[in-house]
């Protein structure tokens, strides 16, 4: 289902185009810049697509954005500046990893919080159990003898 619905959604939006994202003519000569451009592309959303980065998408808009990213990088922008520029132009929607802010607090904080609460709860439970069930005193001689008769033929527990 995952792939096939995904594909259906994709097709609905990108109809007869061909799945081929980055094209040879886009690639920068400077390989360090190109690597940065690719890394940035993976962080940016193609806004007309279904949850695709501009690196994966073959939509015309994604191509424009890829070129834009490369243009800014060649003009000497830092990665941060490129992202800020795109956010100022398209809004936060363009970032595939939302920034940590008030309105995304729950998104970022829920699972670490739950993990910590879980660990804490288990810790408390383990301690409570310890206090409820104090270590039992060692067996008396009579008990020890009774035990050894009980276990005499080595019992096998499957």
């Amino acid at each position, binding site marked *: 289902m995952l792939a096939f619905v995904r594909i259906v959604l994709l097709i609905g939006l990108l109809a007869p185009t061909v799945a081929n994202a980055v094209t040879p003519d886009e690639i920068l000569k400077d390989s360090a810049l190109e690597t940065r451009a690719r890394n940035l592309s993976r962080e940016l959303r193609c806004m007309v697509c279904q949850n695709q980065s501009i690196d994966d998408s073959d939509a015309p808009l994604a191509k424009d954005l890829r070129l834009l990213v490369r243009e800014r990088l060649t003009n000497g922008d830092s990665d941060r500046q490129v992202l800020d520029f795109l956010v100022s132009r398209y809004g936060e929607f363009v970032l595939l990893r939302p920034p940590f802010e008030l309105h995304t607090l729950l998104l970022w904080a829920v699972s670490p919080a739950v993990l910590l609460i879980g660990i804490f709860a288990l810790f408390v439970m383990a301690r409570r*159990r310890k206090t409820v069930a104090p270590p039992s005193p060692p067996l008396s001689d009579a008990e020890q003898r009774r035990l050894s008769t009980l276990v005499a033929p080595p019992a096998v527990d499957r």
Partner: protein
Amino acid sequence: MIPELGHYALVLALALGLIQATVPMIGARGRDAALMRLASSTASMQFVFVALSFAALTICYVTSDFSVANVYENSHSQMPLIYKFTSTWGNHEGSMLLWVLILSLFGAMVAQFGGNLPETLKANVLGVQSWIACAFYLFILLTSNPFLRLAQAPLEGRDLNPILQDIGLAIHPPLLYLGYVGFSIAFSFAIAALIEGRIDAAWARWVRPWTLAAWMCLTVGIAMGSYWAYYELGWGGFWFWDPVENASLMPWLAGTALLHSAVVMEKRNALKIWTLLLAILAFSLSLIGTFLVRSGVLTSVHTFASDPARGVFILMILVLFIGGALTLFAWRAPMLKQGGLFAPISREGALVFNNLFLTTACLTVFVGTLYPLALEAFTNEKISVGAPFFNLTFAPLFIPLMFAMPFGPLLAWKRGDVLGVAQRLMAAMGAGLIAIAVTFVLMGMSSVLAPFGIGLALFVMAGALTDLAERTGLFRLPLATVRMRAAGLPRSTWGTAVAHFGIAMTLFGIVCQTWASERIVALKATQTVAIAGYDLTFDGMVQHTGPNFRELAAKFTVRSGGVPIGIMEPSKRSFASRGSSTTEAALLTRGVSQLYLSLGDSNDDGSIAVRLYHKPMVLLIWLGSVVMMLGGGLSLSDRRLRIGAPKPATKSALQPAE
């Protein structure tokens, strides 16, 4: 006539379902054996009628009966037979029919194989199962009728979406649904236990095989979907953290947690309430997944609101079942007796650790998938949550989980000795450390983290083998004894080791993608491109004609060290019926690594753009999931799970205590 028969069979299944949803449960309250036994017959007959209904739709597809709207929209007379058959479920209505087919199949299987269940439990389980079935029969009959006729039958259909014309459609959705829907049995068992107010270790023993079977199907189903997307979508990715994928990952994570907590419950009678909750959650997440995919809410919150019939219906099912189940849980669970004390460092403790991390990972995916929808619905703000977010939040949860994995099976029940286990894992840790060192030497410092991933994968693999070696006494005892011990080892122990080995294989494959190489170039005929020690020469374009498409393929000869080793023909197919085209990537498998080649646009100067990848060890990602499934299968065949099977009288003295 056939579509009408199919439609009518579905209505009859609904009628039977309504009987099954009420009468046996009334019987269970009044201890009326006759009323309770009714459930077995209705469950079997429900399956028969749904199967008839499904067969009717299949016949419509195979015979290209375009008077049926659903067939007209999703089929074509020129399509190969296999795709005519698979297109039965390659659309919304048909896939929902497949959903209820599998649901009724599971119901019938409980009726058939549940002979050893207490009568009241069986009646209640089948009753609850039938509530779910009725809700989905109604959903199909009221909002998604696949048998709708057209007043005037068109001559030709509109064809199945070309990307779905692939063997993937035959395998992936049925397996995925077997997994999704299989969790309904665990859900029904949980609700039945809550209704009866009684739950014990035997309950876990009955639920485990069903959960295990569902989990196996889901594991491979997800993996096959991933492989399908990998070769079909043309950019070589295998997991996109797409909401639709997340929808299947969430039940998998919850189901994996359920499998592990059910072990604790079965062996030690502990974690009862938690196991019940997980059983409810696993299927609830399956329902949420169905809702996400089927309602259109993913495309946009607004399209959902503009065409609400289906979405609202599924949302109602969701609220009714999840809300109802959790309310019942909150009301009845505190009355259940807890049992089985254990120290934090113990097998139980390790499984609790597993559960904590798996459920948190599941929650992370859940929040990441639904948060943007919720935010948009409440504040109209739009944000994107994609792969970078999930990679950052999911990995930190999975790494400790993987690291703890070899420890779990080696720890003793009740009170374990973590240092002793660490000592026994020395060899495995050594293997991991050597792997890290070797990876650094071989691959250099290009990635600082990836070699540790390799080390972790090797540690888990070696840990799984250590577990087996310890139990059979390998290297300590004479070979004959080892063989005897190995034969006497419970299959579930083998299953654990094999499944853990499998997930380590998947991890290994994923980490290796750090060193995948990529070339994006424009090539003219006779030009050569090199990647990872291979040379690919572009020989020229070739034309092919398929049954319902025309194909333009680029022929490449692959050489390794000057010796030709194969031919790759990536292509573009154009389908006249829909006026659409697909790219078909070419794959060349070398061991478990692959060369991946897909075509881009042709340029004016006669060159053609190609994307070429070398993906080292990539097949391990999916082979790992197959190994996981095999592990599940071994565990499923354990005698312990076949209640009432006679125990062999001999040899037991030689078998190791577990």
